[in-house]
């Protein structure tokens, strides 16, 4: 998988097509923020976004990093951003941008975008594509896999 991704990036670079990178951080990566960011810089991207692996949706059985692990990653990533301006890290950029707003600007920007996601078949979910394909027990269609573990989750309905 890694090799295929890198091969794809090489194609983009050969064709002069700019790219940016999103990466999921699993527990094993949480103590390697600087390594990862240096690697990203070496790839030739100018923008990186990170998502800490989350136990959600189809990844109900995952083992995402603990809060302590995540804190370490972000602390190191922010420190890296302080020393390196070649690569923008989404999360740092968003946060610093927010800090730079006036109170009035923050208030004006406070309303959430519902960000509708339209699925392949016309299903629509709001707020995040992570919710695609997720159904409550009452609404789940027969034969569907049970991907959502809510507080009111009913295993018998899966």
């Amino acid at each position, binding site marked *: 998988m890694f090799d295929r991704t890198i091969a794809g990036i090489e194609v*983009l670079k050969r064709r002069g097509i700019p*790219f940016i*990178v*999103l990466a999921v951080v699993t527990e094993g990566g949480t103590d390697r923020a600087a390594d990862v960011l240096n690697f990203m810089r070496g790839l030739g991207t100018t923008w990186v976004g990170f998502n800490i692996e989350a136990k959600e949706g*189809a990844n109900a059985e995952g083992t995402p990093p603990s809060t302590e692990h995540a804190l370490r990653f972000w602390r190191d990533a922010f420190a890296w951003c302080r020393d390196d301006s070649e690569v923008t890290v989404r999360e740092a950029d968003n946060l610093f941008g927010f800090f730079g707003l006036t109170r009035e600007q923050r208030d004006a920007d406070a309303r959430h*975008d519902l960000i509708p996601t339209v699925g392949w078949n016309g299903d629509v979910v709001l707020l995040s594509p992570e919710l695609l394909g997720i159904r*409550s027990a009452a609404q789940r269609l027969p034969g569907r896999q049970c991907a959502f573990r809510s507080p009111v989750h009913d295993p018998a309905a899966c």
Partner: protein
Amino acid sequence: MSVPTSVAAWTAAATGHAAPLHLSGTDSDGRRVRPGARRHVSVAYIGPMSGPGPGSWRLAGFLPGRGGGGGVSEAYTGNRWFGEQPRTIIVQPTTLCPLDCDYCYLAERHLKQEMTSTVAAAIVDGIESSWQPVEIVWHGGEPLAVGVKRFVELLEPFEPLRQAGVFSTRRRPAGARVLPMPGATCSSSTRSVWASASTDHAPSTLIASTEVATPCSTGPSQASRC
């Protein structure tokens, strides 16, 4: 399936406690609403909001129409928590992802289920002419797994909007290049953002920025906020 007619129902859909909304549904007057069944397709540009009101938050024709009264849009607009229109619409051209990472949150990524141009057209049809520019994010699965032919078919309904320069993104990565035409470049990505930058470039130009996911799982919506 009937369309939820309250913000609570939307919230339920958003939190996974109800079935997702469908493009095909019943509006508040009991009329059947289907993709392609809209009355007009004359979206030539996206301008400033004329103000909150019924119908200002219709998407893809599945919400109650103007003057529906008591519908989602009416309940939705004017509240303090949500914007009056989406700034980003995420589109899933296919569920299939060749990378199939085990930590991905999306189900059915091993299935080849592809969006039809009818659904794509319904999305375009639901973009209100009064809206501010909307960012269209081609998400996945792997969006390019649909192949060039189908991807072009899916992009075509958006073309009038792109031609008018109505897609934009809030921020683009530095160095994003202007490409000659939509679909001219496709790349290995989980999430591709296609947008014309109406403020910086001629309307007919297109910026394609590609987020190549080292893993295929993408994070929450904020990914599109770059």
